[in-house]
């Protein structure tokens, strides 16, 4: 059904209509929360909390992009979790392992154990890099580069100007790049930053 109609019905208190929207967005919401928080359990709690908040406050949604409105609640809930965690640091997240989705459609469909292990390693490295970013940069890089939101959607979701989206994302990417470069040998071979091809690289990096 059309998203606008579902939103309209949900605004009138129709839980089934709202749950249709939940089904549409829960995967993305959970992945966003998981990447921002770096913790599967905290992410699940945050997403459930965010959907509940969204349903209770859906009358406040005044048109525009429902997706942006929804993900603003998700990211704000994640910010709250990060803030609470800062006040009361809990156990380390090292060694966490989550169940990864199978490879996207179009691939052979069957994944070897080696492939799965490689993806788990990549996942860990990416997550570590994201975890090292300050919260605002984490959120923006997750929305942009992991979930594929465009600049306007990010601007609407986070309520920040486009210029801020650009500069914040630029800083976040540069930082992640530096972290991945610093442990390039840990990256699966095919993900290594092949920068040697540029003949001017050496002189450039010295500059």
């Amino acid at each position, binding site marked *: 059904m059309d998203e606008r109609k579902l939103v309209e019905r949900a605004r009138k208190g129709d*839980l089934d209509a*709202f*749950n249709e929207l*939940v*089904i549409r967005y*829960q*995967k993305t*919401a*959970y*992945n966003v929360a*998981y*990447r921002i928080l770096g913790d*599967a359990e905290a992410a*699940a709690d945050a*997403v*459930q909390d965010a*959907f*509940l908040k969204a*349903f*209770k406050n859906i009358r406040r949604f005044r048109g525009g992009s429902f997706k942006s409105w929804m993900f603003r609640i998700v990211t704000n809930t994640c910010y709250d979790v990060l803030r609470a965690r800062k006040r009361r640091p809990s156990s380390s997240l090292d060694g966490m392992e*989550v*169940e*990864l*989705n199978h490879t996207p459609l179009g691939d052979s469909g069957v994944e070897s154990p080696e492939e799965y292990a490689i*993806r*788990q390693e*990549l*996942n860990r490295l*990416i997550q570590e890099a994201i975890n090292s970013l300050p919260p605002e940069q984490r959120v923006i*890089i997750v929305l*942009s*580069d*992991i979930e*594929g939101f*465009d*600049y306007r959607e990010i601007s609407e979701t986070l309520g920040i100007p486009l210029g801020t989206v*650009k*500069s914040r*994302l*630029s800083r976040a*990417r*540069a930082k*992640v*790049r530096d972290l*991945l*470069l610093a442990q390039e040998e840990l*990256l699966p071979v095919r*993900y290594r*930053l*092949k*920068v040697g091809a*540029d003949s*001017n*690289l050496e*002189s*450039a*990096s010295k*500059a």
Partner: protein
Amino acid sequence: MWLRRDKHEIVRRLLSAYIDGELSSQEKALVEEHLRECAQCRWELETLRHTVAILREAPRVALPRSFVIRRADVEEAPAPSRVPAFLRVVTALGVAIFVLIVGLHFLMQALLPGMPAPVAKAPLPERRQEAVEKAPTVVVELEQRFTPAVTEEVVVTKEVSREVFAPTVIGKGIPRAPTDKVGVEPQALSPLPTTTVVGPVALAPSPMPKPAALPTSTPAPAIHPTPLPGPKFTTVLRIEPTPTPIPLYSQLTGRVASGWIWVIAALVLAGIGIGLWVYYRSKRKG
């Protein structure tokens, strides 16, 4: 022109948006021009691109469960504290009523400056004298056709006129003559073409200051002038019986009463609104 270093820094900051195709054509041209001459920026661009590619390959994590909201999750919410919510409503209403009373007090003071106490302080005769002195003299033009309802005789009794602040018409019959001067007191307010009835007169739509109240209860007719489109006469005196003269206090309160009703209604509504709002919020917070 920019210094080379400045340009380099600017382009470096634009590379991320360049990858996403989010630059204006001017910015894009600037970046591409600089990339041709700056190896470090080329390296930056390449590594950034690769980083973005890796992030986009980040595996999706599987949902641990469905996040569909159960009916019980949303229905549990409003219950927990009904009594506190009720008490909050009562508190809000109480505050509203308090504000209302205080507001009315000040409103009354503002609307009735120097309002005399309902019970006269000065001895009655003095107050009467004062009333007479303050009473504006009204000259009313009389037309030949006095209202037919008028009773037989017109007698202006000084005593009554002072108290009622109106020429009191008692008795029966048509006024003696339209040209008769019935009585003259302090001053005239308008020219008199033909007939004048002069004396303290109660005029319904009069903007005149009110004299002090006198708790007299002599029934007397009041005279209401009505403008007529006659060539010669502009006012007709209608004499009709009036009820007991109203004391000033009552007159004043009566005059502002209609205003108060709105103020009271507004304040009561505001109170109820605040109460409902508090109640609603407390319910939503659950």
